[in-house]
């Protein structure tokens, strides 16, 4: 594959087979540092499955997935990540949200984000039992950091609410906040505006831009809401029946007849 630019995620000839079904069929794609890219396609095209392969939920049948935190152009080598455990992959700097919201429902909003910060803390069992001043400081710090993250996503007014009591749109944003808390360099969003009304969708659009610009986090998103996709993304990959059928800028994709036929309609 021919990479044009500073790639931080490179997928080569990825295939995923379930029983007899080829859900992903030799897909190759890459994500450039600092961009907002989108992955679209009809239902059941394999978008979520690609996310699952990247984040270690599935081990791909064939192909490689590699990352490079600073980008290939910096001279940094690519690290293969396929087949690693989800928590290891997350620690390497990839974070995701889920198509069906998976918050820790019975924990507060603050705590959800604190869980995201888990790996930036050190205190183990012994520290927990002794609770020395260092550990106390650390706990104090994580609360403050978490609050800062909530503020960025405009969730700070809910800080002490139980996650399950939040409005739907806020829950989606909390998932993003929680993912951001793990300090990723690449954020994978699976249908971030599904179930949101147009007003909320607009707000999230802004948030996504802010995350990219201020936090310097690269974003890859899956979405069926074309207004969002076309507004925020710089590059779009289109998947159909597990195969890549198009790649390009929003304008190019909008005009691509194959994409119109398979996906966009009209």
């Amino acid at each position: 594959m021919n990479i044009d630019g500073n790639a931080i995620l490179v997928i080569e000839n990825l295939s995923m087979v379930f029983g007899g079904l080829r859900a992903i069929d030799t897909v190759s794609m890459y994500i450039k540092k600092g961009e907002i890219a989108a992955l679209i396609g009809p239902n059941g095209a394999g978008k979520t499955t690609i996310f699952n392969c990247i984040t270690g939920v599935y081990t791909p049948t064939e192909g490689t997935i590699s990352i490079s935190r600073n980008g290939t152009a910096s001279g940094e080598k690519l690290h293969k990540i396929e087949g690693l455990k989800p928590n290891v992959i997350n620690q390497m700097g990839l974070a995701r949200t889920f198509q069906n919201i998976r918050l820790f429902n019975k924990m507060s909003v603050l705590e959800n984000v604190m869980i995201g910060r888990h790996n930036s803390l050190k205190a183990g069992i012994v520290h927990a039992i002794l609770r020395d001043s260092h550990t106390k400081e650390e706990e104090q710090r994580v609360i403050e950091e978490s609050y800062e993250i909530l503020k960025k996503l405009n969730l700070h007014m809910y800080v002490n609410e139980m996650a399950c009591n939040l409005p739907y749109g806020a829950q989606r944003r909390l998932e993003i906040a929680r993912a951001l808390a793990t300090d990723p360099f690449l954020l994978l969003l699976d249908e971030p505006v599904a179930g949101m009304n147009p007003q909320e969708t607009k707000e999230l659009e802004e948030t996504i831009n802010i995350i990219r610009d201020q936090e310097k986090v690269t974003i890859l998103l899956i979405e069926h809401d074309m207004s969002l996709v076309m507004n925020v993304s710089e590059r779009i990959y289109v998947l159909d029946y597990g195969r890549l059928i198009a790649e390009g800028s929003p304008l190019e994709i909008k005009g691509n007849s194959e994409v119109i036929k398979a996906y966009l309609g009209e």
Partner: protein
Amino acid sequence: MKSRTLFSELVKAMGNGLWFLILLFPLMIMKVSVVGGKALITFRWGFAPVVFIVSTILSFLWKRALMWNEHRQDKIPSETLSYKVKSVLQGYFKNPVIKKLSTLILLVFVVSFPFLFGMYHTNVMITAFIYVILALGLNIVVGLGGLLNLGYAAFFAVGAYTYGFLWKYAGPSFISAGIDTGWLFWIALPLAGIIATIFGILLSLPVLRLRGDYLAIITLAFGEIVRMVLQNSGQITGGATGISLIPRPWFFGMKLAPKQAAVYIYYIVVVLVIFTIYVVRRIEDSRVGRALEAMREDEIACQAMGIDLVRNKLITFALGAFFAGIAGVVLAAQTTYINPDSFTLWESIMVLMAIVIGGTGSIPGAIGGAMLLKLLPEYFRPLAQYRMLIYGVAMILVIIFKSDGLLPRHRKQYTFDEKLDSNASAGAGK
């Protein structure tokens, strides 16, 4: 209208009474005895009206109770009596003087217990406290980790046998060297904790990817294997005969009569209970505890947050095992005699029951549940042969009318005090 519903309820209850009369007929009214290979049946007609009337009454009350129970949570909590009482009490206990005072009273009571109530009650309390340690330990695994463990008695056995072996194998050399064998207890206590922890880690390593009941059954299997090894390796473990005459703990070189020894062990176990509560509370309320909480809620999301599930589960198993090990040593010291019968599957189930009835995950719950489960049958003794029957009934009643447990968990939630905003303070929560 009202009297008519009451009437129809009564008719229904009588219907139920009839149903129970039929249902229980073969077992209650008929009685079998086998003589010369032939089953002889006698009829106890006298029971028939009793069964009918008792089940009619019970069924009527049961319906009422269930209805009341169902509508209980409809009420706004702040308007219920129990809430009002609770909040008044809480108000009192917020007062530092009262808080200190009541802790002091409790402490004085606990400390003076052996002198107030005598040896029998002290002994019973020791048994109950041993179960409190077990319940708190298992609560880490089941309540915090969300892992159903049906083989917990194995770690209890490891602890008890650590002490037993120490006595059996090192005891003679202690005696010949002229050292008081009472020292062995103090060596066994930390050693058993460590060995049980190692067992916990070793046993859980291969099985932690299992979920739910599969994990439960595999821990059950481990528990049973440990017991079988203890039972069948007679040369080493004493087999079914067990290990006897285990020394009581050393107390400044004094030989203690059973009465004094009971008091002494009582104090030891009280200190251990306090230690256990302290450790469990700290862990629950830490980074590790938070991760366990999240793991119980959603394993997949938890992993996506970079949390290593296996490591966390391992920690819970190891910690749980540690406390079981310690409790085992105390058991061996109290009974001075151990055999595999004290570590059956039933024992694991009892500890599990203690924490569920107390309130899964709740520390006061584990304490209350363990006390209840161990004290009830003791104080049900006057009920003689009806004891276990009534015990079973009590379990069901408690769990149906307090299905989240008697003292359900109120997790301390991490909160952020917005008024202080950036010079934020971490807060004690709700």
